[in-house]
């Protein structure tokens, strides 16, 4: 299954590893922050509607 990368295996694998790490990093960060802010907003709206 794994293709033979020859003497450049290090370069190819590390570039894939680094890139995927960064991509998943930004995706994860975006999702996490989205969830957190959504929750905070919901709480704030709840509080305000209770107040009025």
């Amino acid at each position, binding site marked *: 299954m794994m293709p033979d990368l020859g003497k450049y295996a290090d370069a190819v694998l590390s570039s894939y590893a680094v890139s995927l790490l960064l991509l998943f990093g930004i995706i994860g960060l975006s999702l996490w922050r989205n969830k957190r802010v*959504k929750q905070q*907003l*919901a709480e704030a*709206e709840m509080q305000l509607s209770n107040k009025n």
Partner: protein
Amino acid sequence: MDYAATNLACRRGDRTVLAGLSFSVAAGKALILRGANGSGKTTLLRCLAGLTPPVAGSLSFAADDVAYAAHDNGLKAQLRVAETIEFWASIYGATDTAPAVDAFTLSPLMTRHVAALSAGQKRRLSLSRLLLTGRPLWALDEPTVSLDSATVTKFADAVRAHLAQGRAAIIATHIDLGLDAADVLDVSGFKPSVADAQDPFLDGAFT
């Protein structure tokens, strides 16, 4: 000429602080702004001076008519008193600095560096700029801060002289200046509702 504001709303930072405020100051009159700390006096004055555009409403005068004096003195510690006065005189194209110097008894201090003035002396120097602007509407933010009582009286005299020339003043202050030709406006009464905030993120609802 009247200086009027109609249905004004003003913002400070991200917050709409005042809304629905209207007033009119006739020539020769003063308007005293009252209100507890944080009620929006500074916000209003900055708006009148053209520093923050109003969120809503309109003003009957241009920012060029307004001489603004803020909480801060706007003085340079390294300049001498005389140099400071000359600087503002040439910015405003004023030729005669004597009235400004006399109104706040600055002549004994002229050769001092601003750094070596006491708090009240600094305030006096800062206020003297008003007489150099030649502008008809004074917008003053707690001008009497750290002035002693004799100087407060002198300051009130300067305001009266200004008004007597058919000009006007809007003054935020917590003390009584003893101006007879003064209306009082309490800004606490103009708290905005959420709808006044004019913020597209507060229209409609989403979660």
